[in-house]
């Protein structure tokens, strides 16, 4: 991709949701696509996620939720990123997220929401195109 350094991505599971099949699968796929992956594990508060993104100097944050709490957690992560002036971090989400919610989440600054059945190739490509370029 002509990047000076590898894309660093923090994958996170906000809230108490335990469905991590997708997150773990993507962690492996991203690694194979040449990214550096930090997976937070379960039970993350928005504060913990943003702190990890800051510490890890993440280019991308990926949020996964299948328990219906995205409307609460995703915008809160965006808010905290803005507070820390991390506006150029690309944030994407995935899970069981109804279309109308996805539209609202995008307004809050989430770049894209990937629903069930999305191919991992599509997700990888999106991140490679949209993640910030740094030297």
């Amino acid at each position: 991709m002509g990047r000076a350094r590898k894309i660093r991505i923090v994958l996170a599971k906000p809230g108490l949701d335990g469905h991590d099949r997708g997150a773990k699968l993507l962690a492996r796929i991203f690694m194979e696509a040449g990214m550096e992956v930090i997976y937070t594990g379960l039970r993350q508060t928005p504060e913990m996620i943003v702190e990890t993104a800051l510490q890890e100097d993440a280019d991308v944050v990926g949020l996964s939720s299948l328990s219906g709490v995205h409307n609460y957690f995703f915008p809160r992560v965006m808010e905290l990123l803005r507070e820390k002036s991390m506006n150029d971090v690309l944030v994407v989400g995935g899970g069981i997220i109804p279309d109308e919610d996805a539209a609202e989440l995008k307004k809050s600054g989430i770049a894209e929401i990937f629903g069930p059945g999305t191919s991992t190739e599509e997700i990888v490509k999106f991140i490679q195109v949209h993640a910030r370029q740094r030297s």
Partner: protein
Amino acid sequence: MLDKDELKKMKAAKDKWGKEILQKSLVREKERKEVFTSISGTPIERLYTPLETASLDYNEEIGYPGQYPFTRGVQPTMYRGRFWTMRQYAGFGSAKESNERYRYLLNQGQTGLSVAFDLPTQAGYDSDHPLSMGEVGKVGVAIDYIGDMRVLFKGIPLDKVTTSMTINAPATVLLAMYLAVADEQGVSYDKLGGTVQNDILKEITVRGQYIYPPKQSMKLTVDLIEYCFKNVLRWNSISISGYHIREAGSTAAQEAAFTIADGIAYVQACIDRGLDVDTFAPRLSFFFNAFTNVLEETAKFRAARRCWAKVMKERFGAKDPRSMMLRFHVQTGGVTLTAQQPLNNVVRVALQAYAAALGGCQSLHTNSYDEALCLPTEQAVTVALRTQQIVAEESGATDTIDPLAGSYMVEAMTDKIEAQIEEYLQKIDALGGTLAAIEQAFIQKEIQQSAYRFQKEIESRERVYVGINKYTMKEPPPANLLKVDMKVGETEARKLREIRAQRDQARWKKALEHLRKVSLTNENVMPAVIEAVKADATIGEICNVWREIYGEYKPKQFF
């Protein structure tokens, strides 16, 4: 078993068919694929004949229903006696809303209840804990203290229904609340029927609703099992679950193998406590998934039943046949559902329910077609319940016992899956047992590898998934999705403030102190937990007692 002569004749006939008929056909037209495999990756032969099952000893390996090794089923009459229990997993919002849904389902002909708790309840947090934010009443009902349980079962006599509760790390607390409500209803414990999931090992490997480290969690698990077989005689004190293992990506054989491995760990833990195997083993129950491949799923259920019977008899020396019976609940496969063309899911669920019936389940939950989109709407729940009623009443699968027995394919597959289970059990033994295998992440890695393989097959279109990688179409966004009221959290928080202020403070304090004292010893905690819930202690307060004593589980991450 076939005798040598017959075998020889049959082999000759098959070879002849292969040369004269099959080869010609293959030359004219190739088959769709070079190798056929099930969704689990198990190779499937072109044709099964008596040759593939020639070594099977009918009396030893297949036998009769209600008799060791239970391959054909755990009861002598199976569904000719009565159908499986139709049990839809449900619960959302407040206890009052869930109570209404339960009464609706019972009126629709459902025969048992299955309580879904919200995630804060499952993780042992009160509704006003910071980690509960946004989660209260979402994927299940919010239960904070006994008052909620009282409302949840209002107007439902506990001696007339059986109740299954999907609760694990804090299982002792929720069972205690149920028992306390039974006391209030004047129902004695020996009249109570139901199940608590109480299966912490699969929380650690795949489901994620753990609180304490494995060893300390196992202590609570065994406390509950011990308390039940002494006091709540008809209660299934554990539901050893393969369902979530499969959802996390395992194959059918892995699902059965890792579930049985977990079962072995629980039985061993009870024996280590000094309990006699035949006292508690009859109340152990199981919970499996059902995917759409009817043949493989039926074989899986039969293999699991046979394998467990052998494990209990041979490994643990059980004498009571009831200790050797693998009785199980089935839920159709959540991950098999697609958000695309959601009505297609009705068909998937029907096939999966059919597999559960052919496999001899004791109870069944059929998923709603809209579950890849949202929590199920009432319409979708009704279709799901009707689906299993159609399988029971119209399909014919329930009029004879284990109808696929004797199918060359299904018997060969049953054998194969049993062999795969046994191979895994040997590997796990070699690693030092189930807990050691989990600690070394062996089980988790095997499952993740299967999930990865499946994803690759879908993306390369090696495996077709209707609506995902073939037969796709543009469709309007789905309408009429269920929305859970976001205000439940606030209402629950207000209620908690009130109860904390109003309860008998002296009784509450004494009960929690007593619980702490008991928890520092090897004594069974159940009586102290019952006393604490009766004193209006909240789930968070009770679980915190153990958080302080046991510490919290923090898994290592790998992928």
